[in-house]
């Protein structure tokens, strides 16, 4: 088991490294550099920067050096816990990301829990009552969940909320709490704002998971051990919940790792539409402004989170699957 965990950890580190190289490369791909974007931005708002100043800025940010040196500098600093400074926000990246990464996690997590909470019972129902009216209904709802692009859903909900209820649902906090330090009221305020984006975000993942759960369970329901359990005189629901559902949870758990990047990706788009203070809009802006330290840090951070997610899901998998646990010994 220790061996298995170490192996997974090492692979995780490798993945993180590859992600870091990729993130850095992607940031470097667009033509021009931050100073170009910065100068252009100033020019667009009516200020001007001379060529000498631009050169001074480049020197300041070390932009003139070869890319591998820039990468080397960046990654060394990151390893020592220093994510660098956001050129656009003119603050340390850790501060800029700050609360937002937690909000991203919170939103993704809420969506994840919602996804599971919905997909599990519905998937079980659909499999056990295959081809029933309920099965078709849930499948249909689920498919609509996949088929309606979530940004469209977000926008329609945003507008409807405004049109019908006269409130702007943008953001995760009411105006009076956005600035306030954390308090019980602020948490309540957050709890009030969170469900809507979480539902929008969860919808497509839920539909997918329902399908996975349904297929897995259909598969497991045919296995002899289900007959064994029935032959023992267990009630039908107890049989299903204890045996095939447990087995079907296995691929379900391994899917968790890939649900996470999906949710985080989805949260980017939704956050832009709904104006949520997550890293999503920050990342898009940073990429557009070529604020490389910020963009790189966010991509890397999200990658690391996913790897951690994968790792946790491996542990969960080990916990659900005794075979895995024992093979590793």
């Amino acid at each position, binding site marked *: 088991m220790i061996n298995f965990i170490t192996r997974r950890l090492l692979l995780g580190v490798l993945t993180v490294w590859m992600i870091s190289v990729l993130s850095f490369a992607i940031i470097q791909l667009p033509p021009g550099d931050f100073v170009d974007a910065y100068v252009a931005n100033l020019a667009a708002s009516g200020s001007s920067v001379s060529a000498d100043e631009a050169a001074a800025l480049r020197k300041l940010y070390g932009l003139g050096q070869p890319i591998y040196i820039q990468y080397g500098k960046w990654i060394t600093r990151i390893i020592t816990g220093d994510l660098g400074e956001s050129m656009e926000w003119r603050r340390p990246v850790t501060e800029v990301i700050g609360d937002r990464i937690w909000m991203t996690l919170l939103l993704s997590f809420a969506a994840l829990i919602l996804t599971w909470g919905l997909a599990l019972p519905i998937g079980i129902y659909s499999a056990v009552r295959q081809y029933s009216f309920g099965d078709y209904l849930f499948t249909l709802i689920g498919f609509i969940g996949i088929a309606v692009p979530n940004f469209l859903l977000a926008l329609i909900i945003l507008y409807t909320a405004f049109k019908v209820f006269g409130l702007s649902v943008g953001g995760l906090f009411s105006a009076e709490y956005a600035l306030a330090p954390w308090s019980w009221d602020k948490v309540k305020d957050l709890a009030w704002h969170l469900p809507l984006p979480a539902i929008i975000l969860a919808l497509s993942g839920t539909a997918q998971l329902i399908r996975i759960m349904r297929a897995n369970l259909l598969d497991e329901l045919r296995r002899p051990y289900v007959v*064994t359990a029935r*032959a023992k*005189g*267990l009630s039908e629901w107890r049989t299903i919940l204890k045996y095939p559902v447990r087995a079907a949870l296995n691929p379900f758990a391994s899917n968790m790792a890939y649900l996470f990047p999906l949710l985080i990706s989805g949260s980017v788009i939704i956050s832009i539409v709904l104006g949520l203070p997550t890293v999503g809009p920050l990342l898009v802006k940073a990429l557009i402004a070529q604020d490389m330290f910020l963009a790189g840090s966010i991509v890397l951070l999200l990658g690391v989170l996913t790897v951690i997610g994968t790792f946790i899901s491996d542990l969960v998998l080990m916990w659900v699957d*005794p075979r895995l646990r024992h093979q590793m010994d």
Partner: protein
Amino acid sequence: MAETPILSVRNLHTEFAAPEGTVHAVDGVSFDVFKGRTLGVVGESGCGKSVTARSILGIVERPGRVTGGEILLQPADGGTPVDLLKMSPWDMRAVRGPEIALVFQEPMASFSQYYTIGNQIMEGIRLHMGLSAKAARARAIDLLDMVGVPQPARRVDEYPFQLSGGLRQRVMIAMALSCDPRVLIADEPTTALDVTTQAQILDLLRELQQKRGLAIILITHDMGVIAEMAHDVAVMYLGRAVETGAVKDIFAAPQHPYTRALLRSIPTVMAKPRTRLPTIEGSIPQPFNRPVGCAYHPRCTEAVFAACRTEPPPEVGVAGRNVRCYLHGGLPGARA
């Protein structure tokens, strides 16, 4: 044989509504099972043996459905037999385990890999016998000990995949016996095992039968196993029992051409070396496309009557045995 059977299956019909057509998996099977005796149900795969077993337990899966017949169980107190098919699902659950238990062909697949064997044995015990967790565990260990699992106290916490095939089947038997059933249905209990283990498991079953007076329905495709274990035999072909009777009679004088063909396919020590083992000509027809007339006629070397091709032969009793073959009577228009 004046004794009343514990379990009596009468004209059982089980159908599967497959997209290709309705499959009559069990098509009018009748047999009796007696206390302390073993009924061997034999036939090629797909002949409806396993479905019969599941029909008895009321666990035929959709789209399957028992459509007719009676399954009469003699209550333990000796009262009038009850028809399991008329029982409510709720009452039926109390039959599974304490009255009739099932042992499967593939011990690996028949266990869930996610729970310890103890957990899976104790489940039935706690459900039906109302024992505490501790008492159930003690009983599980006893049961494991009884079926010859070494170090039962340790094994009880292991997972099925940690056991060898033979041990798994022993555990399976222990689980089946956990609630002291009167009837044990063993569905190909030894097929997946090697020859030595097979013998051990069969010994175990015999031993348990003697100790407890179990009635066993032994489902197998192996005439050798039947010869070794069974007291009575039902030979099944395409959902029908084509010949039933005491094992010695059937082996001594098989009446149905199919039974004869089955018996010919058992290798014997007396066979001449380098001769080909006889096999049954042809293959089993598609289940949803049962031949008209006697189901066996396309493969039968003795199908001499026109009726063989037009009308299924009725069950006729010949010398204390029942057989479905015109060779032994029942020809339309003829006098039996």
